[in-house]
């Protein structure tokens, strides 16, 4: 994994008066209400909350996966909420790495090919270097020997490591992880969290949505959300 030069403590993510509403058959549903938030570079941020509290929605808005109903989302100086679909795709591919709960590896591609895929889409790395880089990432995550296997042949932990390698493929400064350990046993989950901590030490910013109390041990900041609102601002590091 490449270590990024980072000016820790400077803001990377700024959310101002963010609202997100979803239309439902029963009327408009407020997933997030008036969220204002600043997250610093190099931080390991844990977003916690009960199911349906809005934490995954918050992650989606930061990652440009979804759009705000109102408010502003600024990531690394880019006003994400103003980007067109095309610009959003390009920005997302180069600026954000996303890790999902169910890994979401493409089943017909091998592990190494899954890691190469973002490079392929975003053209950040020259074609000749892509495989080498993908293997290096897998190696750094301890699954280099699984590179030529299809996802169905890998364990959950191995799949999540490959998914993390894929998230790092284009060397993004920001990593977003939506309950990445939710589908893993506790031992594997712990190893994944350790891995995230190492990634943050390397200079990246991580925003992690989790249910797991153990994740908070690694986090430099925890944000609790319930009913679409931030509960208690916790400006200082939390070590449970």
């Amino acid at each position: 994994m490449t270590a990024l030069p980072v000016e820790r403590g400077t803001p990377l993510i700024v959310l101002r008066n963010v609202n997100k509403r979803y239309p439902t058959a029963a009327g408009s549903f407020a997933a997030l209400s008036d969220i204002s938030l600043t997250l610093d570079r190099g931080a390991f941020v844990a977003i916690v909350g009960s199911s349906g509290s809005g934490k995954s929605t918050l992650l989606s808005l930061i990652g440009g996966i979804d759009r705000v109903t109102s408010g502003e989302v600024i990531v690394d100086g880019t006003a994400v909420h103003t980007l067109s679909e095309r610009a959003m795709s390009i920005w997302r591919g180069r600026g954000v790495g996303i890790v999902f709960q169910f890994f979401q590896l493409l089943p017909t591609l091998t592990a190494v090919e899954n890691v190469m895929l973002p490079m392929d889409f975003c053209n950040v790395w020259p074609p000749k270097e892509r495989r080498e880089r993908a293997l290096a990432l897998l190696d750094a995550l301890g699954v280099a020997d699984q590179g030529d296997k299809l996802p169905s042949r890998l364990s959950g932990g191995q799949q999540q490591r490959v998914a993390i390698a894929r998230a790092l493929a284009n060397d993004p400064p920001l990593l977003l992880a939506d309950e990445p350990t939710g589908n893993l046993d506790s031992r594997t989950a712990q190893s994944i969290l350790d891995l995230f901590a190492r990634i943050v030490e390397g200079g990246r910013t991580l925003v992690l949505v989790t249910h797991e109390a153990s994740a908070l041990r690694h986090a430099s900041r925890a944000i609790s959300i319930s009913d679409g609102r931030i509960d208690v601002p916790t400006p200082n590091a939390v070590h449970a």
Partner: protein
Amino acid sequence: MLSPRWRKVLRDSWLHRGRTVLVILAMAVGLAGAGVILNAWALVRVATREGFGASNPASATLRVDSVDDALVARVISLPGVRLAQARRSTVARVQVNGATFPALLFTVQDFQDIRIGKVKLESGAWPPEDGGLVIERSSLDMSGASIGDEVRLSFGDGAPINVTVRGIARDVGLAPGWMEHVIYGFVTAETLSRLHAPSTLNELQLVIGDGSLNQEDVRTMAFAVRRNLEAAGVPVRDVNVPVPGEHPHAAQMDSLLYTQGAFAVMALVLSTFLVVNLISALLVGQTREIGVMKAIGARWPQIAAMYLSVAVLLGAVAVALALPVALIGGRAYAILKGDLLNFEVQRFHVPAWVIVAQLLVGLLLPLVAAAAPVWQGCRVAVNDALRDVGLSSAADPGSLPQRITGLSRPILLSLRNAFRRRQRLALTLLALSMGGAVFLGASNLRASVRGATDVMFAGQRFDIALRLADPQDPDVLERIARAVPGVLAAESWTGTRGTVDHGDGVFGNPFPISAPPAATTLLSPVADPGRWLAPGDGRVLVVNRALLRAEPSLQVGRRATVIIQGQPSEWTVIGITESGPSATAFAPREVVAPLATDGRATSLVVSTAADGDGPTLDVILRLRAALGDAGMPVASSQMMAESRRVIEDHLLLVVDFLGSVGWLMLLIGGMGLASTMSLAVLERRREIGVLRAIGARHESIFALVQVEGLTIAVLSWALAIPISVPISAALAVAFGRIMLRVPVTFVPEPNGILAWLGLVVGASVVGCAWPAVRAMRMPVAGALGWE
């Protein structure tokens, strides 16, 4: 090395290889069908153009009493005449291996130097020698003769002579003998003399201009030749000017190919519905993958390119399979068409543009078909795509199937399942029902053709027609005939040829005039508009539709100047009838005979008590003998049942070609149904698992899939019936233009409807067999765990 995303494209295609293969096959069938017709059209076009052109066909033929070298030389010296040649055509009979056929024998001035309507020797000896016969190739199969065989030729009531078949030759200007049920042959003037047939050459064939003239220009120049000859005291009986450079049957065959081509293209378009189904299913199944790819930076055009490339890949493989089949099939079909037109297809080089067209259609059509579902699938928002819960949630079958009650639960489930993917159902139904509509259209056309032939022959109440060697007294003829055992009624008719005078010194092509007695009881066709002949009629004409097409001025109530035996006379058109594909007019014998044959009759028509070909033939032999004994030799005889068979054969051949496209579409529709059901099984794995878990047996699962397929098949059958109405009407109109006016059918032919039901049900049972077996064999745990 392929990048990961293209590897994904390949592996996804491989992952769904069953359906992929099905779609490729369906497309290949559609492409091959269209390709066969396109290639055949291209080959036949070149062959007819080159072959017919190379034969140097006559621009005009003048019928005179006698042509000698001096007359030929005189004509060649006239302006615009490039070539002239004398010929004689003789109607005779030929007996081969005990079977007797009518024969048309050609005799020319110099067989070694035929300059107009060149004949090509295929095998044996040329030129025909005295006492020898060279058979035209298209008559060969029908005659059963071969080189070296001895056959018996006879003319009129003259004694037959034995001649030896010396060679086989091809005359591309002749309509095929097998189709016309006539043996064409080439004999010398000496052979005609031995037959006691006239041997004087009486046709003057001309090549006028440089090939750039149209029919009217040629006609003008041919009539200038006629005037010149008549000024020199050579009477010209008639002038025939065909469309320059066009084979007599070329327009029919072109129209047939266009019609078939249109249906083949329809089959091709239907096969692309399968592409839509496959790509749609792929996209629906991969919605979450699309979301993931977008989340990791893919732009929608990149994703769209991946799925569109699947369509191109399908098209490319289908093209690769279809092109060789189309080339081989096109060659075979071109040879068949060549046989129909009596052409030899020698060059099998399909023009490059034809190949390129097939390539482009094969590659672009699936691309176009896939565009809409890909656009729809790839534009999905990332968050929506990631939230997608997968295929198993799909599908509200709508309110209509919910209303179906009173059936067992499994049957209800099958019925309702059929309506769950409505877009896919619509495409599958469209493919199957269009196939059904074409099949029913062809079936209706077949019934219409039979009906039209019935109409054509309905008024014909005689079984035998005898042409006399020389005109005879009509009353004596009838008296002799009525005395022959087996004869119920007899009428003497006069036959002649007429030409419409257009009033500007130019005349139309000659047409035969059949002249029964005005009070005829043996011929009473329906005339509509207008009426049929009646006792007391004067110079009135009833014309058939083929003549009306050639001479549009011959409308009911209109007067026309008709030249008969060189003399103009005024006639009034009183009716239009259907009487076959050749131009013909009818007029009262009492009026025609004095103008054409000094009041005498040229033929005899007879109704008999005989049942079947054999007894009818006996009556013919007795009639021939009786007339021969009375010094009234018969030149040729014809059984009307045979005539009807010839006409029906001609017409039904075309209908059968159209019907074959219906079969092609059934094949494609069946594949579409199989593809739809295989997708349905895949998508409902979990449901099937649940059914199995709650006790459904193997047979129930098998029946579930089969009943769903049958529901779609029966629906498509019901839809095909109304769709077939406009298709039948269009076919009847097209057929009427090409061949013969047939009644437009608005009520589908019941046998066709039942046959299609049987076929579509059969296709459904076969097409759904594999998906049903797969569903049946699905392990419960695996099916329940599937997402």
